[in-house]
Structures are given as structure tokens and as C-alpha cells.
């Protein structure tokens, strides 16, 4: 029965079936030693096939993780063992990079807005004042002295308008360029996404094998109810709002719900 040891998990069930007449025969003959030999062989085959399967799964899981690479934080010289964990840590680092990059871009954009708002306010303020006196000019309501002043003020205003437009234009350009974060972070997220999908695939495989092992070994598990996510801790932004009747789609829906509660 040496070939039994080579059998893998899929064949194990067949092997049990195949061996049972033999086992029965020994038992009927009263040959307990022969019967125990069959049981022994079955037991060894079971262990062996299980370890083979776990070994191959471990290798494929390891491969999936090792395949995940984002350049620059490579630790190619590190040992095989450390490498597997470093790729996950790398994914985590990369997600932190996303947080930092989006935060930097948001802050830079807001810096530009903060810088631009006073410029546009000042421009508006000066234009309003000039417009008032310009209206009086049209009405021929200005003294010659006032007219001379207006003449000078218009010159100053035009220079200021020119400078302001230049500043605003440059700030808008900076805001535009800052949006490049979307490309950079998008690339990183796509890679992390691929890793997650890959790992999930392997995990599903692992669960399937675990199920097969359970069915052969007769181990029964108590189904644990998955703990519901606590509303108090929060869920973060809802991604598939349209498909979830529990999630409100807009501020209007929220307002409607609140007003139905007497708000």
C-alpha cells in the first residue's frame, strides 16, 4: 500500500472507500493486526495529503504576496521570510503615502485659495469704489479736483487689476497642477487593490480546501454569527449607496428623514 502515501487530498475519499472492504475483510477474519495496518495506512495518507495541500497553498499565497511590487521600496536583498511580510508592510506604507499625498494636495490647494480670496476681495472693493465715482463722472457730477484724483486712481487700479489677475492666474495654475495627486495615488491604489484581490483568491482557495479537509476528517464547526458593525463606531463613506436601502443618498433625504422625526 505504498502508493497510498502518494495520494493527495482529492483521492483520499476514494482511498477510504477502496480500503473499507479490505478493512471489513480483516475484521471478519478476526485479523486485527491486518485491520490496524489498514487504519494506520489510511491515517498516514490523510496526514500526508493534508500537508501536501497546505504546503502548496502556502506556496501560492506566498507567491501572490511576493508578486506584489511597487517600485522604490524594494527590499530585494532581504531574506525570503522577511520578504513576504515586507510586501504587506509596503502596501500599508503605500496607502499611508496616499493619505499624505492627498492631504498635501488638499492643503496646497487651500493655501492657494487662502491667498486668492483676499486678492479678489480687494479687487472687488476697489472696483466698487471706482464704479461709484465713475457713475458720478458720467452724470457730470465731479469737480475738476475730483476728476484729477479719479484719473490717478484709475491708473493705479488698472495696474492693480493687472497684477491681481497675474497672481490669481498663477494660483489657479498651481491648483490645477496639484490635482496630479489623483494620478499618483490612483496608481498606488490600483496596485494595492490587485494585491488584495489576489490574496482573496488564494484565501477562497484555502477556505475551500479547509472545507474539504473538514468533510473528510468529520470536523464540525459551529457557525459563528458575524458581528454586525457597530453604528456608533461609524462606517465611513458609503460606497454603493444606490444599492443599500439603509443608506440615504443625499442631504435632501437626510433632511426629509429628520423632518419626519420632528426636526
Amino acid at each position: 500500500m505504498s502508493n497510498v502515501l502518494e495520494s493527495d487530498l482529492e483521492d483520499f475519499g476514494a482511498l477510504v472507500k477502496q480500503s473499507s472492504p479490505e478493512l471489513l475483510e480483516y475484521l471478519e477474519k478476526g485479523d486485527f493486526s491486518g485491520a490496524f495496518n489498514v487504519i494506520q495506512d489510511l491515517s498516514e495518507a490523510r496526514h500526508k495529503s493534508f500537508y501536501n495541500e497546505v504546503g502548496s497553498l502556502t506556496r501560492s499565497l506566498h507567491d501572490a504576496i511576493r508578486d506584489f511590487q511597487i517600485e522604490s521600496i524594494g527590499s530585494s536583498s532581504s531574506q525570503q521570510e522577511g520578504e513576504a511580510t515586507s510586501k504587506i508592510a509596503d502596501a500599508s506604507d503605500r496607502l499611508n503615502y496616499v493619505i499624505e499625498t492627498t492631504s498635501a494636495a488638499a492643503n496646497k490647494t487651500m493655501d492657494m485659495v487662502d491667498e486668492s480670496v483676499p486678492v479678489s476681495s480687494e479687487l472687488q472693493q476697489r472696483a466698487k469704489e471706482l464704479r461709484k465715482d465713475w457713475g458720478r463722472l458720467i452724470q457730470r457730477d465731479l469737480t475738476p479736483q475730483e476728476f484729477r484724483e479719479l484719473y490717478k486712481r484709475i491708473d493705479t487700479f488698472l495696474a492693480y487689476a493687472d497684477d491681481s489677475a497675474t497672481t490669481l492666474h498663477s494660483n489657479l495654475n498651481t491648483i490645477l497642477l496639484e490635482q496630479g495627486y489623483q494620478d499618483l495615488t490612483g496608481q498606488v491604489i490600483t496596485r494595492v487593490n490587485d494585491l488584495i484581490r489576489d490574496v482573496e483568491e488564494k484565501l477562497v482557495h484555502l477556505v475551500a480546501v479547509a472545507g474539504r479537509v473538514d468533510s473528510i476528517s468529520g470536523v464540525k464547526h459551529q457557525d459563528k454569527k458575524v458581528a454586525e458593525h457597530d453604528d456608533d463606531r461609524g462606517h465611513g463613506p458609503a460606497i454603493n449607496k444606490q444599492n443599500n436601502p439603509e443608506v440615504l443618498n443625499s442631504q435632501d433625504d437626510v433632511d426629509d428623514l429628520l423632518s419626519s422625526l420632528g426636526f
Partner: protein
Amino acid sequence: MKILIVDDFSTMRRIIKNLLRDLGFTNTVEADDGVTALPILQGGTIDFLVTDWNMPGMTGIELLRAVRADSKLKTIPVLMVTAEAKRDQIISAAQAGVNGYVVKPFTAVALKEKIEKIFERIDAAK
């Protein structure tokens, strides 16, 4: 009018701070979760609380409940500005005594509207 803005993301705090400034509220302070917000509130100078929901440490709903349970703080108006949009959560917030609820992403108009509505109610109650 001193307003406390509580959010774990500094960019969101900054957005809210800028919008409030445009609405004429220039006196603001910031905290990054309920744990850091509570001592500031207990300092007794805060007139209005704007808080996120989902934060590490103490969440916004917990902060709201803590504020309502504190005899000195319970009358402070609380505006929730959050991405949490589950029906049950909004009901919980209403039951906990929130004064307004704005879902992210939000507009300047929505924020303005809610704040004005809260003040209208407070004035009407006087």
C-alpha cells in the same frame, strides 16, 4: 461666538474653518476627536460645536451624548458634519439630541443653511 470644530482630518477641519470664516464666524478652535474635544468644551468658552462622526478614540456620537449628559454643556448646539449616512445612525443622532446633520461631501450652501436654521430655532426658543 466661539466654535469648536472636531474632525480627525486636518484638511476637513480647514475646509469647515474657511467656510465658517466666510459666514462671518472667525473665532474657531479645533480638536481631532472626542477625547481632545471634551476638555476644550469643559473649559466653558465654546458656544457651538461642529463634529464629525467617525473618529479614532471618541466618536462624534459619543461626544454628542457626553455633551448632552453634562449639565454645563448640554445646551450647546451641535452640528454633525459626517460621511455617515445610514438611516439608523441619523435616527440615533436625532435621539441623542443633535441640532443639525450635514452629510459629506457637502456644499457651502448646505452648511450655511443648517447653521442658520439652528440659530433661528435657538432665537425662537428664547
